[in-house]
């Protein structure tokens, strides 16, 4: 394939719809909890009753501005809402309130970290507010509409056509997802449709400035699918051009069962949305003092957090990266450190043991059976010499399986480390008595056998012996033998 990419250059731009974490809808005071009973979160406004009017949700504007700050956009003091007109049963007013000619912010950027470790800045053309549509529910006897989602606040984040392959697109999307989650703008749940992606893809001969024919891919609901769909579409378009066919501008969708894109709508079926300024809403004014207020409440973003972890907790870049992979992991780590006071040991336990185990179990940190308190207690037990590191891992495994506290497990299984020299000496003497030939060999100069005796005593004490103390004592007892 490498030669074909010498000949053609793919051009990709992404449009992301992110649901804002507000308590109420964009233009009315209805709640919008996911999974509520059908048509219970509706009112005259979001169900498009005659005479109802929209009112801008200030909380949604706050979150939008937060997104604009996080993506380093230029925020416009004045922006206007516009109506996008089309008929569809999930759109009760016959138009969607959005922003068109004058969005509230433009010209931002997102840093995508590529697998090579290099970073690429992807331009953000604009972010604008809009309301979600309802959902068609296909049931026996016909199609019904659930309006619970109608009017839910969204921001649409439109990227520049800066991406050249699926990896760049995927990494841009992951970075964006992480920023929105960190800044508590959007919960990022892709299965629930709270973070949705459309991709615009075209291919042009390398060196040509003009873009090729644009294909729009709609509603792709996972990072993997976005990458797969883009790869598929690039290959399809190149094949098309190579065969001498003319590509037609159209909208396609990703069929994840068939692993291919399919035509949704041809250009002739494209809507004329007849945008015009929403006369029911005044100009949205975002003053600089309002922006500053939002800036001061801005949660820490992923890159800043990573840097802080490196300097504050003396972590290496890799661990800092792992521990700031999500807001929840970072929060878990910081809480644990506050309790243990040992940033490196805690980093080790969280990054390697806990995340590794969660990953293997297919769980998120939010569902961790091991609580911050329990993990901190375990780390303290190991670091304080109450149990050995090795026993610690056994205890951790038990904690993960049962959710019990480490002290309960240690007590239950009698795993407390033996640091009493008298008790250890008894065990050592027992081992010496049972292994006369090895004692003779040791005495004959085979120093390496020391490890054998340590191992045997460890076995005798069911691994509970304090390893450092044990080493000293074994040597002392053996050396004191005649």
């Amino acid at each position, binding site marked *: 394939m490498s030669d074909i990419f010498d000949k053609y250059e793919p051009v990709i731009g992404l449009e992301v719809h992110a649901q804002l974490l507000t308590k109420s809808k964009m233009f009315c005071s209805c709640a919008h909890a996911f999974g509520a009973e059908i048509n219970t979160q509706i009112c005259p406004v979001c169900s498009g009753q005659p005479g109802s009017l929209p009112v*801008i949700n200030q909380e949604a504007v706050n979150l939008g501005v937060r997104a604009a700050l996080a993506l380093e956009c230029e925020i416009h003091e004045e922006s206007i809402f516009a109506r996008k007109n089309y008929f569809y049963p999930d759109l*009760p007013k016959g138009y969607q309130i959005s922003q068109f000619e004058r969005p509230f912010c433009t010209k931002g950027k997102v840093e995508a970290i590529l697998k090579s470790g290099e970073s690429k800045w992807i331009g953000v053309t604009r972010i604008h507010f809009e309301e979600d549509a309802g959902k068609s529910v296909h049931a026996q006897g016909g199609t019904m509409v659930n309006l619970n989602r109608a009017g839910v606040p969204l921001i649409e984040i439109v990227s520049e056509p800066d991406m050249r392959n699926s990896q760049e697109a995927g990494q841009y999307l992951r970075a964006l997802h992480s920023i929105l989650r960190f800044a508590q703008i959007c919960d990022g749940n892709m299965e629930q449709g709270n973070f949705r992606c459309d991709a615009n893809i075209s291919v042009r001969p390398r060196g040509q400035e003009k873009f090729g024919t644009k294909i729009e891919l709609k509603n792709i609901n996972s990072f993997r699918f976005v990458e797969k769909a883009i790869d598929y579409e690039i290959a399809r378009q190149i094949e098309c051009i190579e065969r001498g066919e003319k590509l037609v501008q159209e909208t396609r969708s990703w069929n994840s069962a068939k692993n291919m894109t399919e035509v949704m709508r041809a250009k002739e079926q494209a809507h004329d949305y*007849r945008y015009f300024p929403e006369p029911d809403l005044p100009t949205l004014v975002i003053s600089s003092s309002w922006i500053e207020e939002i800036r001061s409440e801005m949660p820490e973003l992923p890159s800043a957090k990573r840097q802080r972890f490196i300097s504050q907790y003396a972590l290496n870049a890799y661990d800092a990266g792992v521990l700031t992979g999500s807001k929840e992991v970072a929060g878990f780590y910081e809480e644990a450190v506050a309790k243990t006071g040992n940033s490196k040991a805690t980093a080790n336990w969280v990054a390697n043991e806990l995340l590794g185990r969660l990953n293997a179990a297919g769980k998120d940190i939010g569902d961790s059976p091991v609580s911050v308190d329990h993990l901190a207690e375990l780390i303290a037990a190991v670091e304080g010499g109450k149990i050995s590191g090795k026993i610690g891992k056994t205890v951790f495994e038990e904690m993960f399986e049962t959710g019990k506290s480490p002290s309960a497990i240690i007590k239950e299984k009698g795993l407390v480390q033996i640091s009493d020299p008298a008790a250890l000496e008894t065990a050592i003497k027992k081992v010496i008595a049972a292994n006369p030939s090895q004692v003779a060999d040791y005495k004959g100069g085979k120093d390496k056998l020391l490890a054998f005796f340590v191992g045997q005593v460890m076995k005798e004490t069911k691994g509970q012996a304090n390893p450092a103390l044990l080493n000293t004592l074994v040597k002392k007892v053996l050396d004191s033998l005649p």
Partner: protein
Amino acid sequence: MTTFRKAGVQDLLEGYQRKEFKPSEVVSGTMAAITQLNPELNALLETRSEEVSARAKDLDARMGEASKLPLFGVPIAIKDNILVRGWKTTAGSKALQNYVSPYTGTCVERMEAAGAIVIGKANCDEFAMGSSNENSAYGPVKNPWDSTRVTGGSSGGSAAAVAAGLVPGALGTDTGGSIRQPASLCGVVGLKPTYGRVSRYGVIAFASSLDQVGPFGRSVWDTARLLEVISGYDAKDATSSRGVVPRYTEALALPSADSLRNINIGIAPEWMEGLDPEVKKSFDAAIETAKGLGAKIVEVKLPHAKYALSVYYLIAASEASSNLARYDGVHYGTRSKKWDSLEELYSRSRGETLGREVKLRIMLGTYALSAGYYDAFYGKANQVRRLIQRDFDEAFSKCHCVAAPTSPTTAFRLGEKMEDPLTMYLSDIFTLPVNLAGLPGLSVPSGVDSKKLPIGLQLIGRLFDESSLLQVAHAYEKARGPLSHPPWKGDR
């Protein structure tokens, strides 16, 4: 039994305070008058006698509040494009034939809180589109002065109900003259407030940037009382003004209110050309009366007002094409029985239920907003709209209000202009610019023509200065003296 037909808002309030009668007695009289006269007038569409009687009885028990509630026991008609919970709201359209309001509009909520009794929903042109009330799916309203003639529109039912004495006051809506023109043609007072003065929440939108709710009364005082109740900021309407609402009726009670000594009234020569001679005569006489009260008359220029008709029909139709998209038979309203596809569901439901004029304006507006035409039509119209606003700004640097005829003619015959929409549209040439500029406008009767048909004087004010309009109209009304009433047909 008295029908209370001649009692105005003020008369009723005074009567209640003197405990001369109770709300249920007034309502019984009103209902009797409606039963007797409405079948011919067709002014009211729905009346719900049980609910209305219950409400009146409730107020009977609260007679002690008569002096506190500004509309205690006053029967009111509400134009049928304003929602009142439990009442049908059809907007004069088949598309909403069986639509029962799930909530109450803010203006009605305020009236009810003030003690008013909603007595009926008033007929109107379909979705408030029309100047004769002949576009209602429920038949035209007849002018109480001459039942072969139109009431004007689109708030024809509200104007006729007040003129015929079915109710002392009513609410209408005015997008391009829909309160003032029927007020003029029916010989009552009608006021279109400044855009933003009255909440539009619960008012079926025709053209959102122009629509405004306003009152009808048989006197300026009655109109002022209704206005002060319905005005003011509403958190449910983002375009409503946070400005403080003056106590309009208190200002009218001041002795100084009878003089126009410090008032400058502007007249635009552009508007005096080609007027019906009888309308012109009445206007000139009204101006003479104002002069006699001490008003100074100044000449103002409104050079862009002549574009108002074109500008209005582009802006109003564009907004309407979007506002009326929801009447598609999917979620509520009338759905066609014959459809096999989604597209057919839409086209048949809308095709079968929307009237000719409404379809015409939807098509015009859809075209004006289409890709490639937006700048030339909607965009350009908005530019000219600003020029019209600027004309008025300039005029108001010289005067407190601008006077003009409300309508170029008196009530025309039913059917006379139905086949010629352009002639019909010309009925509103003096009222349209006022909506485009967002200004308040009032129509007060200035006499009758030789056919005994009423003529209206329009006063146009500065933004949020309804007070001046009411004061000038009130002083004029007093000086003019009682109007010869429409024949109080069937009065007992």
